[in-house]
């Protein structure tokens, strides 16, 4: 090949690489920019609304004044209720899949079903929860109906997290334990789970983030449009932050006047998700450091 031609080719290779990489970089920055814009927008608009009263008072004046206390409490009730259901069952399920199930076909089938469950849209969970928990089992619109629906929805996340965490435990630990005469269950309880639990915890925290923000599953199972009091039992309805934001944004009595409340609610909701995220990341880092030191 003639060298002049080569130089030209190399130049055009270089140029197309620069253009392509430039585009990719720009697009990546755009995506990150979008996130910061959304977060920034909500923070800027919402920060002035947030006050002690805002998070500890009942809504007033057709939800254009006052606070969002019952919605915050409601969301925490739903978080609590759903993890009470999904954590134990999900973790047990993960243990079964990774430690007990030996039949490859069975495992594959369970995984397939878990993936399918994970792919079902949240509104379908809402329909299902309404049909089973609210109507058939007669719970009515209640914390228990909403929690079970949300719990079911987060199950796949919990199961997968547990599975991944257990899978990353080196087999030599298990064998070491067996060699000392420990049974399978003892090995899981005293060796495998303690090693895996940092990763499990991290995953669980992220799943809480998901529960706190879901709206569609609670629309017809628990969420109250306006209910300025706290629940007394698990069979009571509650307000919830995401649904409250939806109401404020689209169907309040006076949408214009309740805008600030909506910004405030959005910010509180984002703060919860953000804190959970940071917590999970911090834990991940903390645990990985600890492992390194050992």
């Amino acid at each position: 090949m003639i060298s002049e031609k080569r130089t030209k080719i190399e130049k055009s290779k270089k140029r197309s690489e620069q253009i392509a990489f430039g585009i990719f970089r720009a697009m990546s920055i755009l995506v990150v920019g979008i996130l910061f814009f959304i977060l920034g927008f909500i923070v800027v608009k919402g920060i002035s609304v947030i006050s002690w009263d805002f998070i500890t008072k009942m809504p007033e004046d057709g939800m254009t004044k006052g606070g969002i206390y019952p919605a915050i409490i409601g969301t925490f009730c739903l978080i609590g209720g759903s993890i009470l259901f999904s954590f134990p069952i999900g973790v047990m399920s993960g243990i079964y899949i990774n430690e007990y199930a030996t039949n490859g076909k069975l495992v594959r089938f369970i995984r397939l079903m878990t993936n399918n469950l994970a792919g079902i849209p949240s509104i379908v969970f809402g329909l299902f929860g309404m049909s089973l928990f609210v109507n058939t089992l007669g719970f009515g619109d209640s914390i228990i109906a909403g929690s079970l629906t949300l719990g079911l929805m987060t199950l796949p996340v919990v199961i997968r997290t547990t599975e991944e965490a257990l899978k990353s435990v080196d087999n030599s630990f298990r064998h070491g334990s067996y060699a000392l005469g420990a049974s399978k269950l003892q090995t899981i309880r005293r060796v495998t789970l303690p090693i895996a639990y940092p990763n499990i915890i991290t995953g669980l925290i992220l799943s809480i983030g998901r529960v706190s923000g879901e709206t569609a599953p609670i629309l017809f199972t628990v969420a109250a449009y306006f209910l300025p009091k706290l629940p007394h039992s698990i069979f009571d309805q509650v307000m919830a932050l995401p649904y409250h934001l939806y109401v404020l944004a689209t169907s309040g009595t006076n949408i214009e006047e309740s805008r600030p409340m909506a910004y405030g609610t959005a910010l509180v909701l984002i703060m919860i998700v953000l804190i959970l995220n940071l917590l999970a990341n911090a834990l991940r880092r903390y645990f990985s450091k600890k492992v390194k030191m050992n």
Partner: protein
Amino acid sequence: MAKIETLDANLFYGDFHALKNISMQMEENTVTALIGPSGCGKSTYLRLFNRMNDLIDSTRITGQILVDGEDIYRKNINVDELRIKVGMVFQKPNPFPKSIFENVAYGLRVNGEKNKSYIEDKVVQSLKQSALWNEVSDKLTKSAFELSGGQQQRLCIARALAISPSVILMDEPASALDPLSTAKIEELIHELKKEYTIVIVTHNMQQASRVSDYTAFFYLGELVEYGQTVEIFTKPKLKHTENYITGRFG
């Protein structure tokens, strides 16, 4: 002028000093074997010549490497062009998931060759050179994965030859192959020596003695001994080298 000249080269992976003050020369149309225990830096050294180490974050290189008298680590050198001049064959056969023909044509295509008949000629010529033509002439459009391991490795050699390099680097090219395929590759190296300068890493002493003109013995990142293969294998200057090549070595 030596084909490849190394002047006081050092390489660090982060804090790890992987190559220490290496200086040596390789002549045109010779085969140089790099030997030494696993982890002593043979591959690292070989990959200096086509700047493959650049791909690894946190490597730092000092000293000079000259190919045809040109410092290949100088500022505005075109690395792609260097890699056309200095071809490479890897330890495990790594054909692309493309047809046999496209594998060999790949280097031409990415380097802007559009002339169809030129590409065809070049592919056939390279396959012949790598002694693969007779086995694949009737299935050029088949996937390269359908070939046996030894054939795949010769395909990778053909792929390297197609862009007309003048240096060929081989990193344990036969280590993943059966004895028969290994013999074929060694035969091939003999043929290729006439036109190319070859640097080959091997952990097989017999192979080194069979195929190479010069041998360099590496240990813990240092070049311990370097000289004509016959010399190294019959009367090594250092006890260390002797222990290694006679297999009395940990």
